[in-house]
């Protein structure tokens, strides 16, 4: 512990300078490697256990879904969003449309109506997560991803690079 450096008190002097150097180096190392981890969270999305990737639809089957389509415009490098026949301008508009349609299903007693995200191959993941986020804001529990190309099917082409 801290004490006097009187040589008369402790005749065997220990040179602490190398130790200080080493501790400095260790401090610098840990300071540089220290990273403030950003707060992460998760959306749980359990895959269906009793269904295939896509269900065959019959013509008389009523469509009970909230579908958001995401397209990629390579020329402008932007994502285009479509809800029904409406092209979406901003998040608020999309959220209102989802909310209104979901409210209709709630009135019909169908709270399990899924929100289906139908995204094109090149749409950035953040745009898909953004739509999940909007659906969660209006308290939709069931969020599904539309089955796209089956890359794991025998003979299926690998995703284009």
């Amino acid at each position, binding site marked *: 512990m801290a004490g006097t450096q009187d040589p008369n008190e402790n005749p065997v002097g220990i040179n602490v300078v190398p130790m200080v150097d080493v501790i400095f180096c260790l401090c610098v190392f840990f300071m540089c490697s220290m990273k403030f981890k950003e707060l992460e*969270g998760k959306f749980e999305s359990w895959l269906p256990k009793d269904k295939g990737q896509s269900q065959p639809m019959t013509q008389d089957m009523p469509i009970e879904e909230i579908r958001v389509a995401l397209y990629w415009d390579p020329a402008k490098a932007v994502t285009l969003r479509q809800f029904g026949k409406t092209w979406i301008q901003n998040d608020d508009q999309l959220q209102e449309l989802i909310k209104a349609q979901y409210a209709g299903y709630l009135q019909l007693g169908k709270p399990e109506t899924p929100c289906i995200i139908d995204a094109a191959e090149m749409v950035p993941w953040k745009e898909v997560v953004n739509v999940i986020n909007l659906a969660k804001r209006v308290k939709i529990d069931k969020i599904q991803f539309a089955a796209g190309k089956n890359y794991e099917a025998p003979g299926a082409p690998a995703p284009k690079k």
Partner: protein
Amino acid sequence: MSRFKTSDVEENVACNLIPMIDIMFLLLLFFMLSADMSQRVTEDMKLPVAEMVKEDPKAKEGYETTTVNLVGENDNWFVKIAGHGYPNWDDLKLTLNELAQASPEPGNAPGQFFSSRAIMLRADEAAPYKHVQRVIQQCSLVGFYKIEVVATKPGPDKP
């Protein structure tokens, strides 16, 4: 006769290093304890932002979790699990299959297999959806059905 009286006692001006060493040890201890070694399973990437995510993905929920990172840039996207990269999708499928087989879900019906392990999917916000979709497809094929999509909460620098 001298104008100034010289001191007979030689002053000791040695710097006392002991308090500094004490403080340095405390600092070292702080940095060592705060170093997050769990980052070995997660990769540095820019995650998508979503304020509705459930916080604390490390919370124990009664099942094991494997973190699958989808990293890359431009057109070169690949999966990393526990620091090991899988540029080949077939290798990834084998590894996922081994992981799934190691933790079968109790009560699997004959002829079907599901794993009780969850997959925590951390994909870069710029990753094209087709790669994310393919990872989910591979997970589904080997028996994983618990998929967790990771995002960050918006902060002061993330609107």
